[in-house]
């Protein structure tokens, strides 16, 4: 698996798109800091970008990589390799190279502007961590979609739809149901609704470190108890890890049964 990972990673690290992605984050980082010169404020703006953008790039890149490397995958399949090895290697290769673009792209400007000496360092690190998590989650979901759809166009369509659903539509439905059922205790519902969407969960994890923690008091005890404590942070991290593991597990299962 390491070999496959290594070569997919080298392949991607040399692709134009990795550079574009890297340079994009580099620019965003510098522009934000140049405009604000305030690392904590920049962290909030970055959160908005990361929570929306890393899933989008992750899904599109994941689907694209899978379809583009189909023939090569077939070549690999004829080698004495387990299928699990091949697909996990590719999956980790894609996720890792995207994560590297993100971490370096944002890390360089922030380190240059002295985030290491500021109090925002932990917020910044958790921001990058969440970005990496989202990348891994959405590349895994993209691989799932691609593995289940031979048709490229269909695969792309589903991938975009998935992103749109989790990034926008889900929150819309969430908001509407909260408003409609406001007479009922909504704590548990909110908690579950948040956990079932990795984008929402990531957003909350970051906001807990920034500005939502005190505002959450208004939503009732259960929610605050869960997210307001260290247990909440640990639980959220576990859920994010599950969000990576479950789709990855499905990649393995699906790959074992698939015909090429």
């Amino acid at each position, binding site marked *: 698996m390491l070999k496959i990972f290594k070569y997919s990673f*080298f392949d991607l690290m*040399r692709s134009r798109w990795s550079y574009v992605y890297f340079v994009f984050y580099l620019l965003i980082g510098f522009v934000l800091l140049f405009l604000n010169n305030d690392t904590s404020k920049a962290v909030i703006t970055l959160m908005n970008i990361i929570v929306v953008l890393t899933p989008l790039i992750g899904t599109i890149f994941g689907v694209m990589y899978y379809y583009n490397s189909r023939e090569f995958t077939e070549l690999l399949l004829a080698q004495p390799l387990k*299928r699990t090895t091949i697909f996990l290697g590719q999956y980790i290769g894609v996720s890792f190279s995207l994560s590297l673009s993100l971490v370096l792209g944002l890390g360089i400007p922030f380190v240059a502007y002295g985030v290491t000496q500021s109090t925002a360092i932990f917020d910044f690190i958790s921001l990058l961590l969440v970005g990496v998590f989202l990348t891994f989650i959405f590349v895994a979901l993209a691989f799932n979609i691609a593995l289940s759809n031979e048709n490229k166009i269909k695969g792309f369509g589903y991938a975009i739809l998935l992103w749109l659903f989790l990034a926008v539509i889900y929150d819309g439905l969430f908001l509407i149901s909260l408003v409609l059922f406001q007479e009922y205790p909504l704590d548990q519902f909110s908690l579950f609704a948040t956990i079932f969407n990795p984008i929402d969960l990531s957003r909350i994890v970051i906001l807990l470190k920034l500005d939502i923690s005190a505002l959450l008091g208004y939503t009732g005890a259960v929610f605050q108890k869960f997210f307001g404590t260290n247990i909440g942070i640990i639980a959220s991290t576990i859920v994010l890890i599950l969000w990576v593991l479950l789709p990855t597990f499905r990649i393995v299962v699906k790959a074992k049964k698939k015909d090429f």
Partner: protein
Amino acid sequence: MITIQNIYKKFGKVSVLKGLDLEINAGGIFAVLGPNGSGKTTLIKSILGMVIPDKGSITIQNKKILKTHLYRNNINYLPQIANFPANLTVTELLQMIKDIRIKEADEAALIEQFDLKPFLKQKLGNLSGGTRQKVNLVLTFMFDSELIILDEPTTGLDPISLIRLKEIIQQEKDNGKTILITSHIMSFVEEVADEVVFLLDGKIYFKGNITELKKQTNQSDLEHAIANILTTQHA
């Protein structure tokens, strides 16, 4: 060498292989022929483990191979379409496959034979289709394996390279290898194959040497023999 027993494969509602049995002995060149959609590629991919049959068993050298992977270390496979990671160079690709195979490889002679030296440092994405097919051939023949599977090996090759390919195939046969070929170019098949396997409708329709096939169909060349089978069958 290879024993295939009663394999079935359906893609959705389409049955491609319907209880196919096939025995291939070690040594010699076997051509798998058949019209489009007859199941040639599915058969080959089943042997390679890329397609998982719904039913039946495949044994290679007395070992059941379904759901295992190490047996492939003894198979060289040339896929139909050569498409490699665009951003790796030829050397890196060769290195990678060598890495994966953990097996002695002898690519120097092959690179010489196919004039690939000038391309070694180039990215695969920048190579022409023919050159890529040559790289593909190098990848296939650089290992010393007992079973060699070639899926449409002639695609995109210039005449000189085609001659080289035939030489190599002959060489491998002389070394006692078992070679499985699919091709639409009948002249090529006629030239190299010792035995043909004709697939029709998911089953073996004919298995034997080319002269037998010609005799059976009363035709003087392979192309017409095949055409004869198809027209009489579908009449």
